[in-house]
């Protein structure tokens, strides 16, 4: 009680403004959703085409409000980033530039995810209010994960994020696949959470504290069992977090969940959820790796290689573009894990390349999913790659954007994907991991095989049947998302210096 009274609540509120905004915004949306007029249709809803069921009220303004809240949270993050040169720990939370950059990345993905829901949710008759609320709360959970100095808070954050994510995946209750994906995600996620919690418990056993600050050689109790507990804790933690970021062999849920979930949700999974899990992973590894140097270079490296190769090779067989991108996200988790490997020897450069990689991956994968979503029609999602045939003629700009995203995912210049891989590989070489470098290069060579497949189909395969394509009146936000993502991919790929120095300024350890 004493400590509660002594806490400077105002300062805490100020420093945790993004978190506060997300929670307050989410709560307000929840309340507004509850009291939303059921029968009085706003004018914009009445002007919708006849195919739309007019008895369902359009709650798109809630989405807009959620985006606004996230945007303000983003700006708050930016303000805090400017102010915080040194880390600032407040109880279980730590505010430093690393978490603020991560926060901006994740909140940015959330804004994009909400924008993708615009129009899509209404067309697919999905509950807009719940979607917005869950996204905002999940983002708040992600915030707790990345800015926690305490494993307990991190676990709570993971659970907030995960439970929201389970519901989001299974949100399209009329779609069997969606329901299945939500259930699968939940069942497997529960197992993984158990591993995670078990790992945290062993950490506590080893250090006597849940605070990450306790992970030093002095902090580890001298009893022989505590060393063993540390090993067990690390192993279980690795399994749990490996599930969340989809490292092989804990990746098996990814293709099914990504395929079943509605596309805006999938795009958000691939960007925000993955980034949050990786940032927590990095935060823990930052304190664990110095204690166990071989862990990074051998075990994580092995998992990373397996992940890259399984992801890239399995993707070669995919004809479903959502599954293809799902395997691609598995493979990219492998690359990002390589950045963790370099953290063992060159921590600052390793974290820089991890942040850079996650940031660029988020942008390009959101862009790719957005194009795929935009191409769906009549309440059906575009699934097969073959349906892209002739896109180069029908929608040259969209085809060009999708090509940019795919080339970026493959890591070809002049895109940000190339820069991300370049920094990653340069760090690997600097850390002396030649074998890993070669493996990463070979696997990304393989990946070119399937990333070029949709491009070939788009440009070189004639349209099989001239279906009269409906006018894509899906709204401006998704187009903006695609435009800005493509712009970011190219600009950051050609002029990476500014962004790079921004990230480098964020990882003063």
């Amino acid at each position, binding site marked *: 009680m004493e400590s509660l009274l002594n806490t400077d609540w105002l300062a805490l509120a100020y420093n945790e403004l993004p978190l506060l905004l997300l929670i307050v915004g989410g709560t307000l949306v929840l309340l507004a959703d509850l009291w939303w007029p059921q029968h009085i249709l706003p004018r914009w809803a009445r002007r919708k085409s006849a195919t739309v069921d007019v008895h369902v009220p359009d709650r798109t303004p809630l989405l807009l409000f959620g985006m606004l809240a996230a945007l303000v949270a983003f700006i708050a993050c930016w303000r805090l980033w400017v102010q915080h040169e040194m880390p600032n720990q407040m109880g279980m939370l730590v505010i430093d530039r690393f978490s603020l950059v991560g926060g901006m990345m994740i909140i940015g993905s959330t804004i994009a995810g909400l924008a993708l829901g615009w129009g899509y949710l209404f067309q697919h008759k999905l509950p807009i209010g719940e979607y917005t609320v869950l996204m905002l709360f999940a983002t708040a959970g992600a915030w707790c994960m990345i800015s926690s100095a305490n494993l307990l808070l991190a676990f709570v954050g993971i659970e907030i994020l995960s439970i929201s994510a389970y519901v989001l995946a299974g949100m399209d209750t009329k779609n069997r696949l969606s329901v299945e994906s939500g259930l699968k995600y939940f069942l497997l996620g529960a197992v993984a959470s158990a591993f995670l919690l078990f790992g945290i418990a062993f950490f506590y056993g080893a250090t006597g504290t849940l605070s990450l600050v306790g992970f030093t050689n002095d902090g580890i109790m001298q009893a022989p069992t505590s060393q063993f507990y540390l090993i067990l804790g690390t192993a279980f933690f690795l399994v749990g977090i490996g599930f969340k970021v989809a490292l092989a*062999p804990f990746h*098996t849920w990814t293709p099914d969940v990504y395929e079943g979930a509605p596309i805006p949700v999938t795009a958000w999974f691939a960007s925000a959820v993955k980034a949050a899990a990786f940032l927590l992973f990095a935060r823990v590894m930052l304190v664990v790796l110095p204690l166990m140097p071989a862990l990074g270079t051998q075990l994580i490296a092995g*998992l990373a290689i397996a992940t890259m190769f399984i992801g890239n090779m399995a993707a070669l*067989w995919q004809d479903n573009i959502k599954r293809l991108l799902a395997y691609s996200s598995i493979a990219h988790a492998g690359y990002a894990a390589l950045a963790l490997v370099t953290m063992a020897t060159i921590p600052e450069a390793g974290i820089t390349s991890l942040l850079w990689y996650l940031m660029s991956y988020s942008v390009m994968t959101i862009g790719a999913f957005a194009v795929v979503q935009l191409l769906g029609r009549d309440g059906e999602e575009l699934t097969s790659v073959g349906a892209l045939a002739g896109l180069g003629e029908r929608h040259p700009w969209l085809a060009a954007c999708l090509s940019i995203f795919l080339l970026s995912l493959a890591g070809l210049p002049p895109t940000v994907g190339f820069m991300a891989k370049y920094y990653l590989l340069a760090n690997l070489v600097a850390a002396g991991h030649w074998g890993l470098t070669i493996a990463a290069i070979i696997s990304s060579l393989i990946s070119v095989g399937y990333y070029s497949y949709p491009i070939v189909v788009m440009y070189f395969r004639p349209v099989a049947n001239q279906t009269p394509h409906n006018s894509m009146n899906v709204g401006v936000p998704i187009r903006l998302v695609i435009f800005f993502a493509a712009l970011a991919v190219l600009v950051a790929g050609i002029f990476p210096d500014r962004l790079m120095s921004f990230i480098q300024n964020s990882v003063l350890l």
Partner: protein
Amino acid sequence: MIEQLLQHISIPTLMCLIPLLPLLGAIANGKMYLFSTRSQWKPSHALSGTIAVVMPLISFLIVAVLFYIAMGLEDSHSVSTGPLFTWFGGTQWAVTIGLKLDQLSLIMALVVTGVGSLIHLYSVGYMSHDDGFAKYFAYLNLFLFFMLLLILGDSLPLMFVGWEGVGLCSYLLIGFWFTDIEKAKAGKKAFIVNRIGDFGFVLGIFFIWQALQPTAQPGDAILSFSYISTHAAFLAPVATAATLLLFLGATGKSAQIPLYVWLPDAMAGPTPVSALIHAATMVTAGIYMVARLNFLFVLAPTTLNVIAIVGCATAFFAATMGLVQDDIKKVLAYSTVSQLGFMFLALGVGAFSVAIFHVMTHAFFKALLFLGSGSVIHAMDGEQRLSMYGGLRKHLPVTFTTFLIGTLAIAGIWPFAGFFSKDAILWHVYSSGHFWLWLIATLAAGLTAFYMFRLVGLAFFGKRNPAGPHHVHPENSVTMLLPLVVLAVLSIIGGWVGVPHAMGGHDHIMTWLAPLFPTALHEAGNESTELFMGLGSMTWGAIWAIIAWILYSQHRGWADQMAARFKRCYTLLVNLYYVDQIYDAVVVQPLLWFSRSVLWQTVDAVLIDKILVGGSARIARLFGRVGTAMETGLVPHYVFLLVLGSVVVLGWMIL
């Protein structure tokens, strides 16, 4: 505004403008052509022609101004921009970009821009009916840019850029009418043969680089000519190899044995191109290069001997091949090869300035001859066979007069330009003690007079061949006649800058070039001998000229009788010693066979395509099967894998 511009006028900026103006013209014309291919708009001939002619003309004026400035300079007669910027380099050395005009490059630049401007002007008339008018001038201006870069560049790499650039433009212009497959093939042949030479050139540069690298201080531009000349001593061990390789490059560009075969085929291009690129300027790049690096070549007497022998042999053989050609441009092409041989002969005996002198006079009269032949071809509707001509002197009086002047110049008749330069070559060969080379060269000079007067006799004298074109277009285009007249004047007076002391002259050009070149490697001969030999060589040329004129304009039957009498010899000459056939059998066919059956069908198709490319893809897909096999879609399997994975992780951590 104007004041600000005037502030920037200085010698370095003017020098930069010399190559940049033609580049500007090339870009302007190229853009116009590209634009016209995509729209209805066509650039007017007046516009693109004006741009194309004015740009080299301004360059010529700048060079002339700089020439007068350099003449006034007391010590070195050279101006330079210094290093403008660093192109590339290592920690120990650098390659800088810079332009330099000294006595040698000033003469070359004057010839290139001067003759070049005239030929551009001539082209306006010659190409007036062609659709690719703007494209043609874009290429021609681009050629001048690269040629000037080659001449003005102050380092080997920059010279090489120009060297390759002129090769590219030559290729583009030989194959200018590429819809004719033979012409496209001629362009390809020129390009490929030149690559062989360029390979030698590059290797030579590498040799020099390697030898000089240890001597470099950080930041030294070790491949600039000034650095090489001051550090020539370090090059002594590799001089022979390096210079032989560089000479291989020169044989390619300057059409010497064994790489001369492309030049006669290069006549497929428009005639002004033949005049500019394949007679007056580009083909002399090899001579310029050897003269530029004279300090290197004098370190390798073996190379100099090789150069002299190759030059002499080329001069003679090309002259014999010129004797029997029926195509008017082919005669001139072999004549060019032969004259280039004379120049190399001069280089080989150490008379560098004489070679440059001959480059200059040759540029005048050979450009004149080519433009004259172009005028004839233009008048005869594109007919190039000499046997279809005859009696043209009445129809084309200006062309005839100027062509005759050019012929007299190349035949070495006093006081035309060719007399002084050719006589100087022969004299230097003789006085340096190469008696046999002198004998062969003298014979070749006689043959030169013979085949040139044969050409004049066949084309301009006698009766019209009834099988030829019925109508002869009159010559009335000023743009085509003006260059002819100017070049004719130059062909008369151009040699007077090099009248030797023995004939009462002052030999200005030798004095001008003397500081650049080593003093004579041999003792100067007797002046009265020189005078006597000059008279002798002129008489010798005149005799052959008269024989040819009689044979081909008065008694054509005699020539045919002679051909029948020496049938074997004649067949051998008509077939050009079967050199093309020999190259084809010895080099081309085995290479093709090797490429087709080994490299393509075995290495590429089977090893690379099937095994490496296809095989690796198949392996990747096979493993991908394993990856997808994990995705059963059943949660129990997934949990099983999860647990299995955790066992592996735990096992690794504990063990």
